[in-house]
């Protein structure tokens, strides 16, 4: 479903996601009437007063966020946010270049072609919620679909929320974060809210999803991991302060990203799943023809792999016939964004194991496993309903203890790794998430003052880095070679040795952190 509801129609209040899901759900009921879906005006009326985008230029006054910096006299990032953004942030310049590129035009053209339409405007519009929200807003105001996407990058309001209601008040120190939030300003100083803001585009939302048509036309794969993206983003805020303010910053960052990813994924799933009004956890059996779920949500390599005739494929799998069929013959739901959902991130629904949960997500047929389907809906509603989701804790490390957050991270990684060791095979998406989790762990360990003082820490860190590098090499694609397969060829990788390296690496970090514990 390509809903084109502009970003500026979004609310910024606490129950942001809940409402958005609700709206999307209402819209899902109207799928049969595309004229409604195509008419934003009608929706505005339904929505009542709304926040809308005003454009980044409004923030860029020299007295506000674009303070000049004569001869480098002022090294503070504060009040120079706009300059940092426009000079260094890929959301500014690179986003513009992307839209100006031939590749972008070609992708739009091909998406239109796949949709059997000569009119590229509609295909182009489906890109704009993420790639150029301002031009979508402009086209809404002017009624033209040809607004130049070049003028704006992905500006301030894409992350901070549409500013129409708070632009003139947000500097008022009497306003609390909560009050600002009701006006549409996102509390990006909280890591979870920040992660959600990123995930809205980088994972997707009911209003902005990357479709298989877009991938086929050339859209790069979506593989978002908040902590690593965050690390690379040029900061236009007091990053050092923040790291001091938030205990176990890196682990908080990683957990916030994992939660936001699962949240976005489930929000999109819920939006395309029909439910009875006023009975959110029950399922309405679709009366009309069931359309296959959007292919983009499935594990790419479930289908995009070379046909294998290896007898080990089916002889070593000790499963029931129906499980085997599900495992080998049907597309699998993509686990990139939910890699750790049941590996420590969220309590598994009663009696529904991970495989069954993923099958229910992938299933076209609600009757196939009603219990699992309802469990997905319940968990989805629970997770997406919380604007600031609850961070899990572990049993053996109470919240008040030092390293409690990092312990949760280790717990997640441990559970996934044990699962891999038990199955004896790697799923590329999950293996990469595990690698990125180890990398986050590495940053956590380096942050820790105790580890810095500990003897032998430098050597251990060096060793762990080497191990991570080896894992990275094993998992990486051949870069920038058009003719080399963009497929991670399992046949060329010794899966067991990768799993072993991951285990050694994890144990290394675990012992480094334990060092700190004993010193205390």
């Amino acid at each position, binding site marked *: 479903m390509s809903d084109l509801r502009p970003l500026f129609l979004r609310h910024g209040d606490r129950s942001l996601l809940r409402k958005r899901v609700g709206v999307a759900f209402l819209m899902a009921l109207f799928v049969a009437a595309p004229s409604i879906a195509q008419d934003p005006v009608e929706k505005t009326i339904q929505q009542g007063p709304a926040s809308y985008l005003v454009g980044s230029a409004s923030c860029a006054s020299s007295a506000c966020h674009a303070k000049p910096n004569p001869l480098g006299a002022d090294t503070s990032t504060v009040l120079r946010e706009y300059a940092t953004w426009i000079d260094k942030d890929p959301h500014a310049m690179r986003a513009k270049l992307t839209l100006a590129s031939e590749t972008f035009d070609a992708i739009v053209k091909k998406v239109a072609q796949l949709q059997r339409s000569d009119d590229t405007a509609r295909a182009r519009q489906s890109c704009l919620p993420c790639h150029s929200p301002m031009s979508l807003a402009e086209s809404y105001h002017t009624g033209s679909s040809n607004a130049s996407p070049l003028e704006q990058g992905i500006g301030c309001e894409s992350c901070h929320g549409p500013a129409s209601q708070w632009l003139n008040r947000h500097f008022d120190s009497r306003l609390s974060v909560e009050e600002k939030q009701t006006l549409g300003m996102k509390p990006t100083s909280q890591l979870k809210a920040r992660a959600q803001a990123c995930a809205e585009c980088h994972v997707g939302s009911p209003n902005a999803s990357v479709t298989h048509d877009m991938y086929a*036309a050339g859209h790069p794969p979506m593989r978002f991991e908040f902590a690593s993206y965050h690390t690379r983003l040029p900061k236009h805020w007091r990053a050092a302060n923040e790291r001091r303010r938030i205990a176990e910053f890196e682990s908080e960052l990683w957990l916030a990203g994992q939660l936001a990813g699962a949240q976005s994924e489930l929000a999109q799933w819920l939006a395309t799943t029909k439910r009875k009004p006023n009975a959110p956890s029950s399922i309405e059996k679709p009366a009309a023809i069931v359309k296959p779920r959007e292919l983009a949500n499935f594990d790419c390599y479930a289908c995009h792999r070379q046909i294998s005739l290896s007898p080990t494929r089916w002889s070593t799998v000790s499963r029931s016939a129906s499980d085997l069929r599900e495992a080998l013959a049907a597309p699998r739901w993509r686990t990139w964004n939910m890699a750790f959902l049941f590996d420590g991130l969220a309590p598994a629904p009663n009696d529904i194991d991970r495989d069954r949960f993923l099958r229910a997500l992938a299933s076209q*047929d609600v009757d*196939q496993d009603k219990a699992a389907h309802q469990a997905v809906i319940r968990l989805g509603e629970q997770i997406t309903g919380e604007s600031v989701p609850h961070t899990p804790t572990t049993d053996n490390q109470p919240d008040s203890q030092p390293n409690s957050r990092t312990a949760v991270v280790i717990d997640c990684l441990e559970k996934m790794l044990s699962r891999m060791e038990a199955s004896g095979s790697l799923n590329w998406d999950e293996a990469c998430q595990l690698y990125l989790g180890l990398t986050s762990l590495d940053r956590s360990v380096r942050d820790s003052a105790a580890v810095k003082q500990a003897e032998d820490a430098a050597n251990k860190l060096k060793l762990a880095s080497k191990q991570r590098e080896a894992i990275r090499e094993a998992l990486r694609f051949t870069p920038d070679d058009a*003719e080399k*397969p963009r497929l991670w060829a399992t046949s060329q990788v010794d899966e067991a040795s990768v799993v072993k390296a991951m285990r050694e690496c994890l144990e290394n970090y675990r012992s480094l952190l334990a060092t700190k514990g004993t010193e205390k």
Partner: protein
Amino acid sequence: MKSPIQHSRRGGLIAVIFTTTALVAASAASAQVTAKPAHVSEHQCVDCHRQPFSNERSNTFIVTNAAEIWHKHDQHRHAFSVLNLPVNQARVTSMLGFKLEEAFEDKELRTLSSAPDRAEKVTKLKSCLTCHSSYQTDFTDEHEIAAMDLADGVSCQACHGQASKWVSLHQEPWWRRVDSDTKHKLGMPTLREPAAKAKLCNSCHVGDAAQSKMVTHDMYALGHPPLPSFEASSAIDRLPAHWRSLKSIAEIANADTRAEDSRSLKKSAALIRSLAEPIAENKLAANLSAAVFPESEFGRRDVASDLPRTKTAAFSGIAAAQSYLSLTLATANQPKPASWPEFATFQCSSCHHELKKSDRRDLAKLGPFTQGRPHAIGWTRALPLLIAQSLDQPAAAHGGTAKPNWPAKIQSGFEALDKAMTKEVFGDSAAVSLASQTLLQDLAELTSALKKQPIDKTFVEGLRSRISGPNASLPSDLDFHSARQVAWVYGQIALDLNGADLQPGERRNDAHAAASAAPFLLEGKDFLLLNSSRTTSGESLLKAAKDRLQSESAFDSEKFRKMIQEITVPSK
């Protein structure tokens, strides 16, 4: 039961003299008035057709060692036993969901289980047996299943039809004069007729929804090797022939009027009258050629003089497309599945390809086969399009009506199918159903038109010039399997223009193989795997499938196009 055969001394011809056995059998058959032809024990076939090689006489009508040749050399015999090879057991178990022997009474896998709690397993196994044995979905009678010998794989009656109604009759000399329709009604397809033969072979090697012959995506995913492209004429050539060429058999049969002496004629008349559905006098043609190739259908010409290999290949090309369309039609007409649609009717490589940058960004290729939507299987269309282009313009007076523009009709039919199958992801069922039906209709008409077409040297040369040379009309971007189709036909043309008829017991020798594949060797390698070797072991079957996948991914359509532009028929 023995049917004595006596070799007539006169002219070396065989007269089959009937004993009461045949009459008894015939009256037994007449008891079940409207019953369908039933499977009978093939001991009856072997009694006559399995003479030792040394007893075979080259100039007789009946090939008395046909079964011997088949038993010794024909791979169809292993169609069932291959399921139980150690190397295949794991994959068969995963496909079935249970061990093969669980559907049987005995460990030797001879008798299907009749236990009620195993009925489901037997039913599941039967979906394999439609192609892996002589089992047919219309087997109603337990006796039929009991009469079937699974150890024989795809045996006599799988191709020649269920024999209960004709096993006696076909021993009569006049049987060869009975027209194809009547034989067909009695259960025996006329395999001399290339269209019937092509349909039969393709029904397993490509599929046939009506007979529940289909390899589903579940089967593939759980271990069935991918079905490769198939061209019946060259495949038949690779079999050890247990038949005579049409030309030689027609010569013998048409000369053999003396076989019906007055005595046997009298018996024949009695036998015909005793049938439940007596054969009308006008259903007996003057001779074998007239019976198999009625003038009404084949025009006023000597069909036996047609170049046989190219002819079979032409019909097979159309039949393969019909087989495939029977599957797209059946899956589209199924009630929309709650889970995934059947993937097996889509081109494997449209999903099963590696994700390459160049692949994804190849924006110039925006035809019906564009990336992003799984598309129809492509290889079955290469030959129908070539045939459509090669058909003669019939004389205006002949039919009275204007000749349909075959190339445009077939081309647009396939384009409509492509559109329907990519209209949305996994196709729009209603549109796929309509496109399949239309195309099936058109291909049936094309087959009729082809029957009237003399497959003489002119036609064959015309076909060849469309494949190779300055007037070639092949699409520039043939895929591996389409290229195989074209290459096979080219090889059959080469053999027709140069080769000799094969006699029973003769297998295509190296010279034949060389003549057909010579133009398609890359550095001495059969890169299209046109002459895949006959295999009996599971390992080599698996290896063949692996080789095919490898050759498929290494295939370069541009190289092939250049190669085929430059080849010439190797002359004698």
